[in-house]
C-alpha cells in the first residue's frame, strides 16, 4: 500500500482542569462549526477516527476529540497513584466546559457516546445556552448495574481482557471484524481501574432521571442516535428520554453501543443528516 497521512492532527494541550494541571491529548480535523466528541467509558478518542477522517463532515465542521484524563494518551493528574479514579457528573460537566473554553470554542456542538451520551443530557439541563446543539449516542437517563464491576479491577483478573470481554457483546454481530477488534483493543489498553471509575458515573452518580423532564430542547436542540443491539443503553431508554424532552431520536439498525468505531460508514449514514440539520438551522 502507498504510505499516506490521515488529515487528523494530534497535539498535547496543557491546561488546568478541575483545579489541577493536566496534559491532555487532543485530535482534530476540519474547519467550521466546532464539534467536540466524547468517547465511551474506559476507551479513548480513537473511537472517532471515522468521523475525523470523513471529508463530508470536516467540510463544515471542525471535529475535535480529546482523551479524557486517565484515558488514551492523556495522563492522569500528578499524585494519581494515591487516589482511586471515580468520574462524577459535576467533574465531567466541568471538564467539558473547561476544555471547550481552553480551546476557545464558540457555541460548539457536543457529541458523546455512552457516558458521553449521558453527559450531554446533563449539559442540556445545566448549560443549554453554551452549545449550538447536543448529540447523544447510546444515551439514556440511567442504566442500572447488572454485573459486579469489581471484576474490572483486581489483580487476579487481567483488566484489559475483562474490560474487552464485558463490552464485546455490545457491538452488533454484523460489525466488520477489523472494526470490532479495534474497538475491543481500545478497551484492552485502558489503565487499571479506569473503566470501573467511569462506570461510577454511568451507573451511579450520573443518574439524571429526576431532571430529564426539565430539559428544554427549544433552548438547545438535542439529537439521540442509538444502536438496536445496545443492551446497556437500551433503545427503550433512549426513546424514553426523547418522549420526555422532545429530542429527535433515531434507532440505528445494525449497530450497537459503539456506532462510531464498530462500523463508521454505517454510523455516518445516520450522523450526516443530523449534522446537516444542525448546520442549516
Amino acid at each position: 500500500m502507498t504510505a499516506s497521512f490521515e488529515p487528523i492532527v494530534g497535539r498535547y494541550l496543557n491546561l488546568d482542569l478541575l483545579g489541577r494541571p493536566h496534559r491532555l491529548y487532543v485530535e482534530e480535523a476540519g474547519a467550521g462549526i466546532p464539534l467536540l466528541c466524547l468517547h465511551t467509558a474506559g476507551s479513548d478518542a480513537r473511537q472517532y477516527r471515522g468521523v475525523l477522517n470523513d471529508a463530508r463532515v470536516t467540510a463544515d465542521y471542525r471535529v475535535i476529540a480529546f482523551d479524557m484524563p486517565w484515558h488514551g494518551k492523556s495522563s492522569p493528574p500528578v499524585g494519581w497513584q494515591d487516589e482511586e479514579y471515580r468520574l462524577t457528573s459535576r467533574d465531567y460537566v466541568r471538564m467539558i466546559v473547561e476544555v471547550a473554553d481552553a480551546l476557545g470554542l464558540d457555541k460548539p456542538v457536543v457529541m458523546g457516546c455512552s457516558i458521553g451520551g449521558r453527559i450531554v443530557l446533563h449539559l442540556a439541563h445545566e448549560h443549554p445556552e453554551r452549545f449550538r446543539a447536543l448529540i447523544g449516542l447510546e444515551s439514556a437517563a440511567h442504566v442500572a448495574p447488572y454485573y459486579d464491576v469489581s471484576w474490572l479491577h483486581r489483580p487476579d483478573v487481567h483488566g484489559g481482557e475483562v474490560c474487552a470481554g464485558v463490552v464485546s457483546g455490545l457491538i452488533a454481530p454484523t460489525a466488520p471484524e477489523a472494526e470490532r477488534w479495534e474497538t475491543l483493543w481500545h478497551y484492552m489498553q485502558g489503565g487499571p481501574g479506569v473503566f470501573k471509575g467511569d462506570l461510577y458515573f454511568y451507573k451511579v452518580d450520573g443518574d439524571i432521571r429526576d431532571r430529564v423532564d426539565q430539559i428544554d430542547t427549544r433552548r438547545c436542540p438535542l439529537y439521540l442516535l442509538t444502536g438496536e443491539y445496545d443492551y446497556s443503553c437500551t433503545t427503550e431508554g433512549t426513546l424514553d428520554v426523547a418522549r420526555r424532552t422532545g429530542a429527535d431520536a433515531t434507532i440505528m439498525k445494525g449497530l450497537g453501543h459503539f456506532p462510531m468505531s464498530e462500523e463508521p460508514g454505517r454510523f455516518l449514514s445516520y450522523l450526516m443528516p443530523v449534522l446537516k440539520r444542525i448546520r442549516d438551522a
Partner: protein
Amino acid sequence: MIERIADLVNADERLVWRGRFVHTTFLIEIGEAGYLVRIVDGRVVAVTPGPFVTPNYSFALRAPRDAWETFWQKLPPPGFNDLFALFKRGLLRIEGDLHPLMANLLYFKDVLASPRKVAS
C-alpha cells in the same frame, strides 16, 4: 446443539489458545436439561448430560431452552446476541465461583456461542 460444543471448540485453534490456561468444569442448564462441560487447557474434554446426584462445577449458566436456541441463531436478534445481553434481560442466571468465567470472558463467550458456527 450443546453436544457439538466439544468438536466446535476444539477445531478452533485460536479459541483453544485463548483458553490455554482454563482448567475447570461448568454447568450449563438448557431449560430442565443440565450438562457438565469439562475444559482442560482450553479444550473441551467432556460434555456430560445430567441428571446429576452431586454435580461438582465452578460456575453455572441457566436459561430457558428457547433463550439458548435464539442465542444460537446464526444472526441472533438484539437482546440475544451475547451472554451479558441474556443476563441483563433476566433470561440467564450466572451463579457460583465466577473467577474462571470473568478471567477468561472472551474465551467463554465464544465457547458458548460456538453452536452459531453450524446454525442454518
